[in-house]
């Protein structure tokens, strides 16, 4: 019970803060409540299949296999796979984090995890068509091109800047999430 309260304390505080917010700012009340409803619905809709898929990956994909596919020795093919996985994934960025945790747990390299997160956030292929029709093909394609460069750059910089000990901590944390 105590552990439960401790875990959910921040959530409870935010919900109370939300109540205080809509009570004190009448001009934003309606929009805030509508947003809460919309976002909660999106999350409840998108989240179940993501977690089911990562549960299936966790159970069925052997660690040796994942290391071979996306581990530190997987080279350009591993990076391409990480990029493809991220690009075809659906849903908001927060869906990528638990997915990344399972991939780390199974032995994917940190570099590939960063590429996966980057691809998930910016290079959604179905969204690209939509973006091109709304903002023009030139806008969408040049954004895609520069963002692919950005994904690689950010992965490279983070690999360089993050100490090995911190990286190990992240992997230990992912392994403990069972």
């Amino acid at each position, binding site marked *: 019970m105590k552990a439960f309260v401790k*875990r*959910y304390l*921040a*959530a409870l505080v*935010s*919900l109370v*803060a*939300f109540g205080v917010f809509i009570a004190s700012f009448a001009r*934003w009340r309606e*929009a*805030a409540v509508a*947003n*809460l409803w919309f*976002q909660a619905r999106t*999350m409840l809709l998108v*989240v*179940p*299949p993501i*977690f*089911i*898929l*990562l*549960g*299936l990956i*966790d*159970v*069925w994909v052997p660690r040796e296999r994942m290391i071979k596919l996306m581990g530190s020795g997987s080279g350009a093919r591993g990076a391409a796979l990480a990029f493809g996985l991220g690009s075809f994934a*659906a849903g*908001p*960025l*927060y869906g990528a*984090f*638990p997915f990344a*945790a*399972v991939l780390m747990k199974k032995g994917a390299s940190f570099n590939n995890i960063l590429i996966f997160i*980057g691809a998930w*956030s*910016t290079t959604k292929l179905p*969204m690209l068509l*939509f*973006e091109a029709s*709304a*903002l*023009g093909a*030139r*806008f969408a394609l*040049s*954004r895609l091109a*520069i*963002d692919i460069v*950005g994904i690689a750059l*950010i992965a490279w910089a*983070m690999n360089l800047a*993050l100490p090995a000990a*911190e990286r190990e*901590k*992240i992997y230990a*944390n992912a392994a403990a*999430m*069972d």
Partner: protein
Amino acid sequence: MDTIALYLLAVAGLAASALKDRKKTGMALKKAFKAFEGILPQFLVVLVLVSISLAVADQASISKVLGEGSGFIGILGASLIGAVTLIPGFVAFPAAAALLRGGAGVTQVAAFVSSLMMVGVVTLPMEMRYFGRRAALMRNALAWLFSLAAAFFVGWAVSL
């Protein structure tokens, strides 16, 4: 639309898994639920942050920043708004198109779209839960800086 594909994939995966091994499928579902419950507290925090930030930064105030404040301040403002909001693409793109038609600069709109996708200030509680404070903050800072560079590139490419 891609949510349906996601469901089809999950259902197909579950069916294939159940045909092969009932017990393992049960384990997968159990793990799925545990993983979900593990992130639920951060989820709720993010939910509240998103709802409030989107209410305050509504389309009218966004277009005010992007429209009048052209130049670097407008770009900076656009990327900051993009960083703290969480809008799905199918809502963001038509909104961005409306901003363009309303006279906002391409670079400003590109800054907004780029940081909207790459930077997630409101989802930081979740990102930190998986990646730790340091890596999460670093990724978002780098992504934000990069979104500025991307905006200039897109602005230039469209003007060609």
